[in-house]
């Protein structure tokens, strides 16, 4: 394979040997350290692919994180994905796919000197990218309104009235702060019996089924796993009897992964806009369209990532 390569770059040399530096005169876009347009194009393309490889690992690590979290709390994922809006997610998927398509068409337009078509395609792609972000914004806002957030915020009462509801009940007695019936030591004669470790603690240690803070009881886990078409109400998730522990971690990974993808879309908006301007200035032709091609590759990868994100978050049965 490697030899195929070197061989190839050689015949590039050989092929253009007769008009060696002529290329630089003939092709103004040819950088000084490249011999032929093909070498330059191939280099750019390989560079982009290697960069995409880093992107794959960048997101890949997050997918690993996702897999492990879901593996640890399957009930959380199957429960919490009910809060995500499948319709909006589906629309977004289609938007991205279409913008990917227009991008691909745009590349062909550039290759075939169709300036008008190129500009149109880039504009459409740009529109798709922005549309995606707008829809995402509405999704996020809906969740924020209902405190479907990361970390502790997830457990905060949504409003004063909700706070009242959850405040009503007496605090559980095992809360140490309240168990303040302090036995007065001055009654020195009263000897506490030696307390053996509480049985639950012992069992927890003997067979490591439970962590330091106990486990979700089987019943609840099963309950949480069964919502076939169960649709929880986002606004009072705190009062939902089926809310499994550690649900906040689902939203943590959800915001991180979709957020990082969103950032990539944002970058895409930037570069595509730049392409659009350059294209209108007529910078690209069948001789020189490398930037369009490379941005195209980047944009398709953004699409690829979403193709995986969508089922993994929105389509959990």
């Amino acid at each position, binding site marked *: 394979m*490697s*030899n195929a*390569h*070197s061989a190839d*770059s*050689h015949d590039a*040399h*050989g092929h253009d040997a007769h008009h060696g530096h002529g290329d630089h005169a003939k092709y103004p876009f040819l*950088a*000084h*350290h*490249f011999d032929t347009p093909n*070498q330059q194009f*191939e*280099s750019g393309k*390989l*560079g982009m692919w*290697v*960069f995409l*490889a*880093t*992107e794959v*690992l*960048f997101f*890949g*690590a*997050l997918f*690993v*994180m996702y897999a*492990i979290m879901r593996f*640890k709390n399957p009930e959380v994922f199957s429960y919490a994905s009910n809060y995500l809006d499948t319709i909006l997610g589906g629309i977004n998927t289609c938007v991205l796919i279409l913008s990917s398509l227009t991008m691909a068409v745009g590349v062909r337009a550039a290759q075939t000197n169709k300036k008008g078509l190129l500009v149109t395609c880039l504009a459409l792609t740009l529109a798709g990218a922005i549309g995606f972000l707008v829809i995402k914004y509405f999704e996020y806002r809906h969740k924020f309104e209902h405190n479907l957030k*990361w*970390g*502790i915020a997830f457990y905060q009462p949504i409003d004063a009235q909700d706070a009242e509801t959850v405040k009503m009940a007496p605090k559980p007695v095992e809360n140490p702060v309240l168990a303040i019936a302090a036995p007065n030591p001055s009654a020195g004669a009263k000897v506490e019996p030696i307390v053996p470790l509480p049985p639950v603690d012992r069992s927890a240690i003997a067979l490591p089924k439970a962590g330091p803070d106990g486990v979700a009881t089987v019943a609840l886990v099963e309950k949480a796993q069964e919502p076939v078409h169960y649709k929880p109400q986002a606004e009072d998730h705190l009062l939902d009897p089926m809310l499994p*522990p*550690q649900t*906040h*971690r689902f939203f*943590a*990974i959800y915001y*991180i992964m979709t957020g990082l993808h969103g950032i990539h879309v944002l970058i895409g908006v930037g570069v595509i806009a730049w392409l659009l301007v350059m294209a209108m200035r007529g910078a690209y032709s069948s001789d020189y369209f490398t930037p369009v091609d490379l941005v195209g590759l980047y944009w398709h990868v953004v699409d690829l990532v979403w193709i995986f994100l969508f089922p993994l978050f929105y389509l959990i049965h």
Partner: protein
Amino acid sequence: MTTLDARPTIAAEAPDNYLTFRRGLLSWLFTLDHKRIGVMYLFAALASFFVGGVMALLVRTKLLFPGEVAWMTADQYNKAFTLHGAIMVFLVIIPSIPAALGNFVLPIMLGAKDVAFPRLNLFSFYLWMLGAICAVWSLIAGGFDTGWTFYTPYSSTSQAGGVIPVLVGVFILGFSSIFTGINFVVTIHKLRPPGMTWFRMPLFLWALYATAIIQVLATPVLGITVALLVIERAFNIGIFDPSMGGDPVLFQHFFWFYSHPAVYIMILPGMGIISEIISVHSHRHIFGFRFIAFSSIAIAIFSFLVWGHHMFTSGQSPLMNVLFSAITFSVAIPSAVKVFNWLATLYKGSISLNTPMLYGLSFIFLFTIGGLTGIPLAVLSTDIHLHDTYFVVAHFHYVMMGSALIAMIGGLHHWWPKMFGVMYSEFWGKIACALVFVGFNLTFFTQFMLGSQGMPRRYYAYDGTSAGIPGYVEGMAETFRIYHHISTGGSYIMALGFVITGIYLLHSLFAGRKAPANPWGGASLEWQCTSPPPHDNFSKTPRVGDCYDFSAVHWDEKQQGYVVDADAHASSATSGKGH
């Protein structure tokens, strides 16, 4: 830097070289010339090396005293060793060889005019600068005491103010390293002139290629890991922090998935340099080219399969411990192969003990120790005892510093004449090398005994009885103090050696004898262009021969250097000898 241009010698005899091609500070800051970028990387990395070294000396000096000292609290000590580790790893060792020496040498060795993406190259240098600035920022923000490994949950809860800044810095430095890697991969694939086949490429380039693969594939994972850690620390979302349901062992998996391969980002280019130095200075064809070349690639691939051996005691499951321990040994083999090949290269050579060669031989000595002491750490039952003790510290200093950094300095001496067109003082070079060698062994060999005797690493004090403070380890002074004293003494000797090196190298810049094009008698392409090289490396596409075939290299009294008979060299190579 600009002062260089004032030097008459160069200006007179080499009207156009990359130093004099354009003048003024801006011509450096906005240069796209890989050589100038390499030089800027070099001096930046050396500056960071100085800072990291000072931190190391502070730490060692503290350890002269077994108990508490007034001038350095436990907190300051923790911050000092953390800073030392972070700077040395992220700012010095990782960029020094690929980004500094590699940037300078790779295109010339390859016979290319420049790297594939000069702008990207400059950009990655400024990313590096940004990362360095973040490190400074973190110091202003109160420093960071997490250890360079940033283990959660301590790193996500530590009171120190500089944790997030330094993590941001690491993130940025990661991308600087990624872009360098991309550049090298593409350059080596696409910019080889006719005749430069894969098996005529110098082994340094093979090493850089293997390194680039790791940089490209592993570094993104570090990026995402520190990003997650920043988020965890800022919003406490429960990815890594158990108090919110996270899993600290998972952080270690993510961290070491990058940081173990990163160890080879540090050592592989060093091995490449040593292959060059050993072969050139013993004026003898490298022995077993293909074995060395492929062992580099093998190491690069295996390095992704063994990260778990950093976690034998971390709560990783026994099954994975056994698995990782077994795979780890697969990395030992290629390293051993390289050492044997270097030895065989010496056989029947014509060895001249120049300063670079001295560093090369020290590398073999130190790397052998570093490699062999890795074995008890890869073996499960013994690692349980040795893990997180000074034994580990000694081991990775032998590999990271005794090997990677010594190779870097060796390479610096090897290519210094090429970079700046001047010769440094061989006399002082040998003295400094000897000091560094002796000092290094005094410093770190003692730490093997410290560790196997059970002294844990990252300990501010190792004997409390003298200090009379509750809690400190007791009754260990008699066991450990002597070792710590030898170690600290050695570190001072080593520091002296480095200071001398710095002095005579700087001196040579201004008053050094003009260097011939080929002072050592190398046969690879960089020795066939003038010293310093012209702005665009080669006026005409160079004729490529076997870069380890010295039959066409001859001594030239007039130049006080060697000359390569290009035609004879190219033809002797095409005559199918060797490989």
